[in-house]
């Protein structure tokens, strides 16, 4: 197990390095880096000063070495707009996004497993139609559109929920509901498909033959075996949730890492963008490793 985890961590590290190299060369080779780091209206002198200060006149490999050295110490430099270290700004926002993602994914997982299992048990029934409907909506409707339409209906029209910001529990409902739809539809389909094939296997028939009730058959016997493909998709969707988080956080004024990233891009605050990308990448790699561990816990046949 530890040997496997080391191997996985090493593979993740290589992917991360790939990202670092990509970002570095993109930022250095597509024109003048001072245009990325400094505001658009920066004077020539301040640009020259910035070059001197940060060694942008050195050979590119020297710059790369220094850049990697800083990254290892999690030193991304100061945020230009916020006069705080970029990494602090990002970590603060990241906690919000992490909460949002965790709550959403927990709800999605529970709902998708319960409804998907029941749908698989009664193919063509009410739950099955819910499954089809949500997966179609999730795959077809743009999340930003659902978000603003739900603001119009629930915040402006009915006045039930606040339009944006944070503070009370009510502020969380709309962002979570909008984020919920896409992964729910997708995971639901996978749960359903996986359950349909598991329910037709021999040991489920045995369980039924010896007179077990439906509930223990579905949720005790079949579910554990049907879970493996589901977990893979949950992992993918948790990473993809960040796509939705960027949009949803921007619309609902939620102080997470997605909104921070878009704000920083519009304000041209490159250090924060860079730090946000790296922190997100590390989080995704950690999650991928956790999913591998979960695999081994669920299925004792899998031994790394």
């Amino acid at each position, binding site marked *: 197990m530890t040997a496997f985890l080391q191997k996985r961590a090493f593979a993740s590290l290589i992917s991360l390095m790939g990202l670092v190299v990509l970002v570095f060369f993109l930022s250095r080779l597509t024109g003048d880096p001072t245009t990325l780091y400094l505001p658009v209206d920066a004077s020539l002198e301040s640009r020259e000063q910035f070059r001197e200060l940060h060694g942008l006149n050195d050979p590119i490999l020297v710059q790369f070495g220094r850049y990697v050295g800083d990254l290892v110490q999690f030193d991304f430099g100061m945020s230009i707009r916020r006069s705080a270290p970029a990494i602090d700004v990002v970590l603060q926002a990241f906690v919000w996004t992490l909460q949002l993602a965790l709550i959403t994914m927990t709800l999605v997982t529970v709902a998708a497993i319960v409804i998907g299992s029941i749908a698989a048990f009664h193919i063509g029934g009410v739950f099955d139609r819910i499954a089809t409907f949500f997966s179609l909506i999730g795959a077809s409707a743009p999340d930003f559109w659902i978000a603003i339409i739900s603001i119009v209906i629930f915040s402006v029209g009915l006045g039930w929920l606040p339009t944006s910001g944070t503070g009370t529990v009510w502020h969380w409902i709309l962002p979570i509901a909008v984020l919920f739809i896409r992964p729910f539809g997708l995971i639901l389909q996978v749960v359903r498909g996986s359950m349909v094939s598991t329910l037709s296997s021999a040991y489920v028939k045995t369980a039924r033959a010896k007179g077990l009730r439906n509930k223990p058959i579905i949720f005790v016997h079949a579910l554990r075996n049907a879970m493996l493909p589901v977990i893979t998709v949950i992992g993918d969707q948790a990473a993809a949730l*960040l796509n939705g988080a960027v949009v949803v956080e921007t619309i609902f004024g939620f102080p997470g890492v997605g909104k921070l990233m878009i704000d920083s891009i519009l304000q041209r605050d490159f250090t924060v963008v860079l730090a946000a990308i790296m922190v997100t990448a590390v989080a995704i790699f950690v999650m991928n490793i956790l999913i591998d561990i979960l695999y081994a816990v669920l299925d004792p046949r899998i031994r790394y």
Partner: protein
Amino acid sequence: MTDTKTLPPQNIPAQTHPAKQILMMLWRDKLAFCAAIFILIVIFCALFGAPLLEDVATKQNLRGRNAAPFDFSKDWVFWLGGDALGRPLLARIVVASQNTLMVATGAVVVSLAIGTTLGLIAGYTTRMGSQIIMRLADVIMSFPSLLLAVIVLYMLVPSVGNLIIVLAITRIPVYLRTSRAEVLEIRERMFVQAARVMGASTNRIVFKHILPVVFPTLVTIATLDFAFVMLAESSLSFLGIGIQPPEITWGLMVAQGKAYLTTAWWLSFWPGLAIILTTLSLNLLSNWMRVALDPVQRWRLEIGKKSNG
């Protein structure tokens, strides 16, 4: 086809033209048929509507600011209402369809071509090259596509061309992995080995024998992916880092209408509806294609003809 020999002769249907056969199958699935019609309308709008309505769509009329929809006494282009500068929404949606479809088509075609080629190489050769290709795909796949697009668009100027490149990069691994997985299985089949024994070159085997078998799967995925890319482009444009004004796309129109949500909901509603209907149609069409292009499941759509499926 071989088992039709055992059937009594009256059960053999007359050979119909393949195109007609496909049309018949499309007609059997009413939802997919409507979807196909809608997609054709959208394509027609993108090709011919944009140049025809360009002038009408950009003509400002400040007296008609945020004109309400369903006012049929006005010109037909105003039936869906007017935007904040009094420009007709219907005409703008038609004009915007050009950019929206162009970005999505470009991204899908580029990623399909590059992904499939790399996938065929990675699947048919077992050298270092395929290892490197797969690791590269892993790196791209392991990162949320929108974030990747965000950082690249930050450093490059957001334009139609760059948007296509960015979206294509994020979608290449999908085709790469699919075509590689299919090739790994197909290359062991008899007809490939026969071709090899007869001395066919690698190029000929890959492009003449393997590619046609893989292609239907790839087309089905591409249809689905078209919807995905459209949504991604809309999100980017909505966030302000995709297509820039005065160019318009549906996503950008939703963003521009956002400021008037409480007073004029139609500004954001109609372009959003256009996005949904298009992606929904693509999803339905992709579902139909999955069945229609699969010889094992095809009978489900042919069932009206004979009932011994």
